[in-house]
């Protein structure tokens, strides 16, 4: 019996399939960069002088082992934390802060430079809660900085920082840096963590 050759499979469309795959992956791949909240730990310094800070300039945030939030000795929901922190930072009680929009409540912080947020957590607190609280507090600072930058330069602080990091941005980076520093100085991030 004559051997019949197996018919050759047409492989011409193979390239098309490969291209299709290639384009699909080209579009869907995101090269992962990690994102996160940057923090700076206080240096280990044993002979630190105790600085006396007025009680009204400290905004205490306490997270207990059951992930409950105690802000200034009152229970609070995570949702309200940002607003409370903004109110505290932007209070401007002693009147030296001419850009503050707060209530100028004498029982709250003197000015943004003196206002300190103190964060304390229990060992049993979950990491998720801790990060959420950190996030809200950073958000409070960013909100104030954004507002201030908007009124000074017509651009939010976050945008300015993004521009500064963007290599393709056309403009004077030196000037931009000065502006960013100025905003940072007006609303310094003073977040202390109790160990």
């Amino acid at each position, binding site marked *: 019996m004559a051997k019949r050759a197996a018919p050759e499979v047409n492989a011409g469309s*193979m390239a098309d399939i*490969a291209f299709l795959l290639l384009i699909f992956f080209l579009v869907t791949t995101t090269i992962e960069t*990690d*994102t*996160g*909240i*940057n923090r700076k730990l206080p240096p280990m310094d044993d002979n630190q002088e105790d600085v006396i800070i007025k009680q009204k300039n400290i905004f205490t945030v306490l997270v207990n082992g059951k992930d409950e939030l105690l802000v200034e000795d009152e229970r609070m929901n995570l949702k309200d934390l940002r607003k409370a922190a903004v109110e505290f930072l932007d209070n401007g009680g002693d009147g030296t802060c001419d850009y503050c929009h707060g209530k100028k409540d004498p029982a709250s912080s003197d000015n943004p430079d003196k206002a300190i947020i103190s964060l304390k957590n229990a060992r049993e*607190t979950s990491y998720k809660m801790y*990060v959420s609280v950190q*996030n809200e507090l950073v958000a409070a600072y960013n909100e104030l900085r954004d507002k201030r930058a908007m009124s000074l330069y017509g651009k939010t602080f976050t945008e300015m920082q993004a521009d500064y990091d963007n290599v393709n941005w056309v403009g004077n980076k030196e000037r931009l840096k000065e502006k960013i520093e100025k905003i940072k100085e007006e609303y310094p991030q003073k977040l202390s963590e109790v160990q």
Partner: protein
Amino acid sequence: MSKFKKKKGGELPAISTASLPDIVFMLLFFFMVATVMRENTLMIKNNLPYADQVEKLDKKDLVMYIYAGKPSEQYKQYGTETKIQLNDKFADVSDIAAFIAAERASKREELVPFLTTALKVDKDASMGTIMDIKQELRKVNALKINYTTKKGDVFSH
């Protein structure tokens, strides 16, 4: 009927597959460029928490990674408490100093002050371990840290 009879008419000529290697090479190069190698095999659950006030952590060569979380399914024998992972192994809090020293030694000297420690911690981990890690980092003067998170809204997750 001639001897050199033509093959049956109408049959398609075989399509050249000579360009297939090119395509394969192209794919190869693409993935070579786009792939980020995973340095560590995780032995812990590592479900990062969400946050939206995040900054990008670029300059990958200047980052030291510390992982923490509860041991994953196949490493159950190590218990259910939050554990620290450095490189490929479970580690103790006391190992962190040595780890940081080793990481610093492997970098050029002028880059050492710019090193950041990224804490990749599972969202269910307890803060006790993190506090220990932070205390240990302060001791070795590695003060720049980053709580690595996923980008997303805090309240919707």
